């Protein structure tokens, strides 16, 4: 038998004799160096019981459930929404008929920014990149024929998260479904809006006030609801590295935790309802390592803050394949990219997954493209054998070394945020936005200099490709006019006295210390529109413009 160190030294000497490929890019997508080979030396400091543990056991590196996908597959949840509630309701029925197991609502920009469809700023945007929801009437149409006590729904909404959650609760009441029966998630992660996604309603402090009011309201009235989905996805899509995505997202999560405790909540009463949402990009092993590192850091940090309930320490996450990895050139290649990314998410142990459609660098996806995306997940689930073994890459020298490295990089960022005075001062100085923009520019340059190859973009381009036109989804501009009439009809056919009282009550809650979420549910019941609700918030707290040009 060879001695390990001798054999390793001999291997390394021999390796140096053969030149490496000149065109190789031996770095992760995030720019970290990757060695040709990883061995036991790279994980020598790891302690199995302390750093990995068993699935369903602290620190959950190997997965949050003891049985993982052998007990239950991940939820296949495709993000969908366009046009009016009617068009999106049809797409929802289509997805449910094709075996999708949860719903996920994409809203249009007026809804995301808190404007009604007939507002001047909504021109041309209504129903364009999501569904237009102005009031509880639209929410009822969105769930027409879909039992709200049976389906779990995720809503990507942040600035006006409380308003859309209120519509959901009120629409469920119309179906005879009670708050305690509702299951789902609101994204409600305002911090990453200031870092990257840019759909905010008011400034950070009042936003946090609304969020903690949601935590309080939901803990009592909608206990199965995930009141926040702390999102790295948008940070990554805006150009961050994997380490930045990991660090900023977890820093945001810890900020919500600390603010909840400051607002008087018991950590174990709301921490179990916090969930996460990560990007799953094209660098296969780095992404798998990211999910594993995220679980470990979260478990340790939550425990450090005094949580006793193991459920508080579990990092439950949704994942979505990387929109930015899709190319407008040779769009069918995106099917392959998405499949690799989806596989990484499953190997990383995600709880739910959205796979992008191949045509999304060009337009919203067609039904055919969405079906292929969903089938991709079903093939991984039922044909590849991958879900049969829990954390199958655990113990891989490379994956473990990457997991440790990402964890260490995240802690370096936590340190820097602290040095800047914490989350709010760091936001204020534009720290996150600048860090992300820097990384984004580095990546762009890597592609433009040809150091990193993207098939169909800077390598293997095909000349005739402009000619082959992909069939794309077309959103009829007439829908904007229809939706404007619908919101006007809602305003014209409601009880004006009740509306006035509910809006006054909301205004008072915002100015005083009443629960804003409870006031919003009352508004939703009497058909106050979301533009009107958000208008009250803007009036009380002012519009936030500070970071718009950073």
């Amino acid at each position, binding site marked *: 038998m060879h001695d390990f160190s001798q054999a390793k030294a001999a291997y390394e000497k021999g390796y140096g004799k053969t030149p490496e490929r000149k065109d190789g890019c031996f770095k992760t997508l995030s720019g970290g160096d990757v060695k040709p080979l990883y061995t036991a030396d790279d994980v020598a400091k790891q302690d199995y019981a302390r750093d990995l543990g068993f699935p369903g056991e602290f620190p959950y590196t190997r997965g949050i459930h003891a049985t993982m996908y052998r007990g239950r597959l991940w939820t296949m949840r495709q993000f969908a929404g366009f046009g009016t509630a009617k068009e999106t309701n049809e797409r929802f029925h289509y997805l449910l008929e094709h075996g999708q197991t949860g719903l996920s609502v994409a809203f249009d*920009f*007026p809804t*995301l*920014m808190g*404007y009604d469809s007939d507002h*001047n*700023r*909504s*021109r*041309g*945007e209504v129903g*364009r*990149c999501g569904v237009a929801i102005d009031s509880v009437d639209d929410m009822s149409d969105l769930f027409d024929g879909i039992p709200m006590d049976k389906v779990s729904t995720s809503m990507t909404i942040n600035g006006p998260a409380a308003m859309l959650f209120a519509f959901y609760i009120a629409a469920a009441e119309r179906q005879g479904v009670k708050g305690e029966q509702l299951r789902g998630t609101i994204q409600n992660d305002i911090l990453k*809006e200031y870092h990257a*996604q*840019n*759909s905010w309603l008011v400034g950070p402090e009042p936003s946090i006030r609304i969020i903690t009011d949601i935590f309080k309201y939901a803990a009592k009235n909608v206990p199965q609801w995930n009141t926040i989905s702390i999102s790295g996805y948008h940070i990554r*899509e*805006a*150009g961050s590295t994997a380490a930045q995505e990991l660090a900023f997202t977890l820093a945001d999560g810890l900020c919500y935790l600390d603010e909840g405790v400051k607002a008087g909540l018991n950590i174990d009463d709301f921490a179990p309802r916090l969930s996460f949402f990560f990007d799953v990009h094209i660098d296969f092993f780095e992404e798998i390592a990211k999910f594993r590192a995220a679980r470990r850091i979260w478990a340790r940090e939550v425990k450090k803050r005094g949580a006793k309930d193991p459920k508080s320490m579990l990092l439950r996450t949704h994942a979505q394949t990387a929109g*930015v990895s*899709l*190319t*407008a*050139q040779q769009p069918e290649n995106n099917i392959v990219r998405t499949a690799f990314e989806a596989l990484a998410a499953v190997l990383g142990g995600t709880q739910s997954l959205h796979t992008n459609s191949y045509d*999304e*660098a*060009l*337009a*919203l996806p067609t039904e055919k493209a969405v079906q292929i995306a969903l089938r991709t997940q079903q093939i991984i689930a039922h044909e590849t054998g991958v879900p049969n073994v829990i954390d199958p890459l655990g113990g891989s020298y490379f994956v473990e070394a990457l997991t440790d490295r990402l964890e260490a990089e995240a802690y370096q960022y936590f340190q820097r945020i602290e040095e800047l005075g914490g989350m709010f001062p760091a936001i204020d100085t534009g720290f996150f936005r600048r860090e992300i*923009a820097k990384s*984004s*520019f580095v990546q*762009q340059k890597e*592609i*433009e200099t040809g150091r990193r190859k*993207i098939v*169909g*973009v*800077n390598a293997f381009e095909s000349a005739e490709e*402009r000619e082959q*036109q992909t069939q*794309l989804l077309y*959103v009829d*501009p007439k829908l904007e006019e229809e939706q404007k009439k619908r919101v006007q009809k809602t305003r014209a056919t409601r009880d004006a006295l009740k509306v006035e009282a509910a809006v006054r009550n909301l205004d008072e809650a915002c100015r005083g210390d009443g629960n804003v979420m409870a006031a919003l549910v009352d508004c939703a019941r009497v058909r106050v529109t979301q533009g009107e609700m958000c208008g009250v918030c803007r009036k009380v707290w002012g519009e936030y413009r500070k970071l*718009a*040009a950073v």
Partner: protein
Amino acid sequence: MSETSSAAPNRRHRILIAKPGLDGHDRGAKVVVRALTEAGYEVIYTGLHQEPESVAEAALQEDVEVVGLSILSGAHMTLFPAVMDLLKQNGMGDVLVFGGGIVPPQDIDQLKKAGVGEIFTPGTDTNVIVKFLDAYFAAKDARK
């Protein structure tokens, strides 16, 4: 550098990069601002969430020759014409308008017919945009 001095493009021109509408996707706009600035152009960035009126106003105030609109929300068929009409009303009908974002090929054709100089889709090399502007200004300077 392989460029000879006689062929070196004149980049002493002012360009406005704008994000009209409610769309918050600003990665592309920021990358383009930085690439054009590094190439030597004088670039002004409006920031997010601009109304067409404020974009046209900024174009006038900053006295730019080119306006680049970044739109990834699908509102391009409304916002491009809106900005162009307002530029005309401001007596700036000769300003070149170009753009970038998630825009389907059919819409690109239609917008170009309506006078938009070019639309760059995801995956575009920023050097392509620089060259496009170089060529535009070379032709414009030659007409003087």
